[in-house]
């Protein structure tokens, strides 16, 4: 065992191995506990529907987390976009117009998130707290304005609700995200900024520009995720989107993403993490765990994963 760990290649990939292992473990444990129901055709559909939104959000968010930043406005943004998308689509009869509006809004928010924090010299978590409050407020106002508890979509979105559509969406965004992350300046620079912003800047990287671009890509992902959430639920209300920001963070951590970002970040964390997270929640329910216990168990699993993956390696050679 000791010899295995001393193997450099293995150690370099130990983080991703652990997160793959976590996913595998989740699959095995819950398929046994749920007596195989985890893999029933019906449940697989549920899993993909649930994972779709998480995976798309996480693949956008990973660019932000790679820089060592956080965004907590996701949930409120998703909520507002869902409501707006439904309202506009209902009013105009065009889903395209609804989606175009929220996409434009998401891009503007990306700009604000990235640019304003640089201009005002604020940490980007502060601007995201600000956006979170604004969007939370807008969500409330919108619901007050329509004066119902929830708005339902009248447009037929079932073509987006199918498993094929969702799998395609995950696959397309995954291909785009992997290419951007591994083979373009955007991905390389976001990791460099996370590892050492000053060194990146002194290598000629326009930190502001790439930061804004990363937030813009995240914005696109949020808009797409909101579209699929709308398709899945068919309605939106005051509570839509609540908790997504934290869920994404937990999913990324489960996928082996270091919170400080940097060169240890891997794009695979977003996919593995969101599936692990969804299977964990779904599996616990399927196994007949009381809903009131689910949170406690999730917390314990979370703590265990962090202890295994995120602790600093010891025994580094002194100079």
């Amino acid at each position, binding site marked *: 065992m000791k010899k295995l760990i001393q193997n450099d290649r293995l150690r370099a990939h130990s983080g991703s191995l652990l997160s793959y292992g976590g996913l595998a473990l989740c699959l095995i444990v819950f398929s046994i506990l749920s007596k195989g129901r985890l893999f029933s055709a019906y449940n697989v559909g549920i899993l993909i529907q649930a994972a779709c939104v998480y995976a798309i959000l996480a693949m956008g968010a990973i660019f932000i987390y790679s820089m060592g930043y956080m965004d907590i406005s996701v949930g409120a943004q998703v909520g507002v976009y869902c409501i707006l998308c439904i309202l506009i689509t209902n009013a105009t009869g065009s889903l395209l117009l609804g989606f175009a509006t929220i996409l434009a809004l998401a891009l503007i928010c990306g700009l604000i998130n990235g640019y304003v924090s640089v201009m005002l010299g604020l940490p980007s978590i502060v601007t995201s707290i600000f956006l979170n409050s604004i969007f939370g407020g807008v969500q409330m106002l919108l619901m007050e304005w329509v004066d119902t508890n929830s708005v339902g979509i009248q447009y037929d979105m079932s073509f987006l609700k199918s498993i094929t559509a969702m799998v395609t969406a995950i696959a397309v965004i995954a291909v785009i995200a992997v290419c951007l992350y591994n083979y373009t*300046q955007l991905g390389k620079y976001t990791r460099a900024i996370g590892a050492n912003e000053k060194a990146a800047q002194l290598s000629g990287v326009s930190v502001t520009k790439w930061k804004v671009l990363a937030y813009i890509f995240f914005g696109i992902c949020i808009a797409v995720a909101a579209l699929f959430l709308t398709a899945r639920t068919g309605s939106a209300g005051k509570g839509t989107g609540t908790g997504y920001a934290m869920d994404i963070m937990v999913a990324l951590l489960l996928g082996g993403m270091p919170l400080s970002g940097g060169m240890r970040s891997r794009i695979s964390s977003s996919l593995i993490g969101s599936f692990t997270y969804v299977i964990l929640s779904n599996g616990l329910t399927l196994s007949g765990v009381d809903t009131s216990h689910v949170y406690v168990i999730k917390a314990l699993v979370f703590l265990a994963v962090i202890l295994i993956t995120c602790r600093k390696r010891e025994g580094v050679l002194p100079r």
Partner: protein
Amino acid sequence: MSAVEELLLEIKKMNKNFGPIAALKDVDLAIRRGQIHGLIGENGSGKSTITSIAAGMQEATSGEMRFKGKPWKPASMVEAQAGGISMILQEANTIPNCSVAENLFAGQENHFSTLGFVNSKKMNRAADEILQKFNLTHMRGKDSVNAYGFEDRKLIELARAVTDETEILVVDETTTALSFEGREILYRLMDKLAAENKAVIFISHDLDEILLHCSILTVLRDGEIRGVITKEEMKQPDSIHKIRQLMVGRDIGDKFYRSDCDGSHGDEVVLEYKNVSNANIKNFSLQLHAGEIIGIGGLSGCGMHEIGRMAFGLEHLDHGHVLCRGREILNTAKAVQAGIGYISKNRDQEALILEGAISTNIVMPSLPDLKKAAFIPPARERRLADEQIRLLAIKCENGGQWVSTLSGGNKQKVSFAKWIAKGSDIIIMDCPTRGVDIGVKQAMYQLIYDMKKEGKAILMISEEMAELIGMADRLIIMKDFQIAKEFSRSGTLTEGDIIEYMI
């Protein structure tokens, strides 16, 4: 004369292993009273390992130490300091956001407290007394350490390390962080300790400094002692040559800096400062030509580092322009595009992504040039990085190895490789050989000279006068944010000629 002096610290057959790597192999060392004992060797030769074991930072794998005749095995630096061995380190070691007094008395607050409340007035007064004792009268105990520069903080560490109990002071490459005045304070302290029949262990890369101040010198290589040189031997004219040979293990010859005295260069002005002013520097003008090496020297705080930063768009300019072939430099991204490379003095903080692969670091500035229709082919990246690793002989297993695992010299090579890979033809080097051992230093000087021959323009900012004299076509000495004197390349220039313009 040495036989009569009492043995203070004796190290016998000390071994230290880090995993499979032996950092020390059967090292014997004796420190006697009244000695300033120099330790010299390349990076990784084991100098710091020996002293850090003696000062309680880590434990030896095997071996025995006797201090003042008794077995010595300190469990921590605090215990070692109380017992009489104190150490000043190369890296910054003060606690930020605390006052000078709180730093000086960290861990001893109970001497100043009643019922758990620290009497900070009393502590500040005591701190002022200590500062007075070390002649650091420009600092006050109640001030925040943040108000002082790196150098002053180093001196605070010095004042903290040397107490009445101190019998042996270990100075570990501290002088590279200090300017001329700071060094003088340290040297005076070392001489005082030696005169009081105590001892100093002095680790430095600077041979001249070692020869000037040490009474005995031990040379290490690869964790073994390769030679002990007495004061008499140090006075021999060929001593430097002999010591270098012991350190490197082969004859590196006399050719250290460039040997020619030809200060000629191309005609094209590639970088120009036009009446540049910022908060400190007023109306600075300078022209750098293709194929020219301009050296800038001075004391710390003379503004020379800011000059380098200005040309890379890192300083806010109140007036004037920095032009690169007629284009104004406004920010770092523009500077890099214009073909300027900058090797920062703060290597680990500003120049390198320590927690990242060597290849990632090398290709970072070149990424825009590598892309094919927005995508960067990994093979191109690897090829560029491997080429540089080979060219500069960076000691590593492969390009995927992390920079944090490299020695100082190899880290600096990575820092150079970034700009060579980019093909930058104006290189600004701020202290390019700081903390780099002799073997690598020689390779760097050769590299810099080759760059000049290729027509690249180099702005070399350094605190080491010898390398400026040895390398520069034009040498500019700065004092109080102004050019005090300009020298042209000549074979007869000495440090003595320069220093009078610095102070």
